[in-house]
């Protein structure tokens, strides 16, 4: 099967601190991969390199056969764990912004997702709660017909009801031709959607495989396995 993302010996150092120490990971087309690890394990660093906003110190990461750059940004839909909207924007401005910059943005899908998330297009982004902003970011990211979706903590700071809604949105809008990589601490809430999982610790992938096979071979849920690996 075709690998949409391939990382080989990926390293990233910040002066005297090593965030990634030779991480190796492949993501196949059509798969949802959970990248799991504790705080400071290198999850966000890995995703930021894949999104093209951080540059590796050594090693290689290819998306659709190319190094992160203008092309990969056009096929990667990235949801960062920060609130990146411009202060003056209303929701409709944010939608228009994505429509203007991304050729794969589907306005109809965005309208459906806005309705599903109960977001008013005339609301100012500044006035939205953290959960609402998270829903808006997800609406924008999932409204693209991207080859690779990168979701960094999509459930961060969101209440349990909203979590279910967000997970439903992810599942309903995921296409077989796409791939997705998700990081989260809320493993129990989200593990049902993972095809594959990769456990990252101290900048290295320490365990990876098919989620169902891991459950059967270890006789544990992914959440239990996570707790065992990182205890």
């Amino acid at each position, binding site marked *: 099967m075709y690998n949409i993302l391939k990382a080989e010996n990926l390293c990233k150092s910040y*002066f005297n601190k090593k965030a990634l120490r030779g991480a190796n990971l492949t993501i196949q087309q059509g798969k949802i991969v959970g990248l799991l690890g504790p705080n400071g394990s290198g999850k966000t660093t890995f995703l930021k390199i894949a999104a093209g*906003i951080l540059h590796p110190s050594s090693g290689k990461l290819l998306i659709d056969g190319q190094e992160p*750059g*203008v092309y990969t*940004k056009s096929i990667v839909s990235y949801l960062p764990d920060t609130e*990146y909207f411009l202060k*003056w924007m209303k929701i409709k401005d944010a939608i228009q*912004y994505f429509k*203007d910059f991304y050729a794969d943005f589907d306005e109809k899908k965005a309208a459906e997702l806005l309705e599903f998330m109960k977001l008013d297009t005339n609301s100012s982004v500044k006035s939205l709660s953290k959960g609402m902003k998270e829903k808006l970011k997800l609406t924008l990211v999932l409204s693209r017909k991207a080859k690779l979706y990168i979701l960094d903590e999509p459930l961060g700071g969101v209440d349990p009801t909203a979590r279910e809604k967000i997970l439903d949105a992810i599942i309903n809008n995921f296409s077989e031709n796409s791939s997705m990589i998700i990081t989260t601490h809320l493993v129990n809430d989200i593990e049902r959607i993972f095809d594959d999982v990769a456990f990252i610790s101290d900048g290295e992938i320490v365990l990876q495989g098919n989620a169902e096979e891991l459950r059967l071979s270890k006789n544990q849920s992914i959440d239990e396995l996570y707790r065992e690996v990182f205890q």
Partner: protein
Amino acid sequence: MLNLIKYEVRGKFLTILGICLTVIMGNLFLMTKIGSWEIAVPVLSGFLGIGALIVISISSLTLMSDYLYDDQGYLLFTLPQSGVSIMASRLIVAVIQISIVTIVSMLMFCLLDQGRLLNTILSYVEVHELLYSILIHLWSIVSALTFIYFCMVVGKIALKGKKLGKIGSFIIFFLLSIVRAGLTFVISNSFPQIVEVHSVTTMTINIGSTIFDIIMFAILFMGTSYLLEHKVDL
């Protein structure tokens, strides 16, 4: 790139509007003092215009620094846009907003002194000389901002942290300014050929240092564009 310009102008719209309204209101107030404050009226109008230009110039610097150090950088740097597009759009928006404020300030000044200064200038200066001055003014803005943006980006890449990065950028700017001034001095002495432009006063342009400025601009523009696309870490 046009979309980048569109959204940047939209983002700066209130700043531009606020500055222009302040200049207009200030000049309207000064108009009520014509006859009682005498020479202070045009002088204060001039200060108002200079103040407005300083504020809008600072705003032009934030066109780059906001994206380098704040979370909105995640929006800009994940777009499928080249470093050249990002850099060019910043410069074009800066020129647009500085030009708008300059034009409004000058118009208000002309209204205030009933066009006397403008008539005096036009009676001595040819139209092509005026256009040349405007071109030089625009070149100065673009050249200076390119240099400053380069220092900002190098500071961001070389030093970790918002505070350290900004202080570092200033030090880099200071040091490179000295180096640049030194090189300009050496070049203009080594190649003393000049072109004279006759106007109200005679302007001399050193050919060597002008070529050096143009080459420096090209290097800094392409260098900053490359660094934005390939080296800046958020």
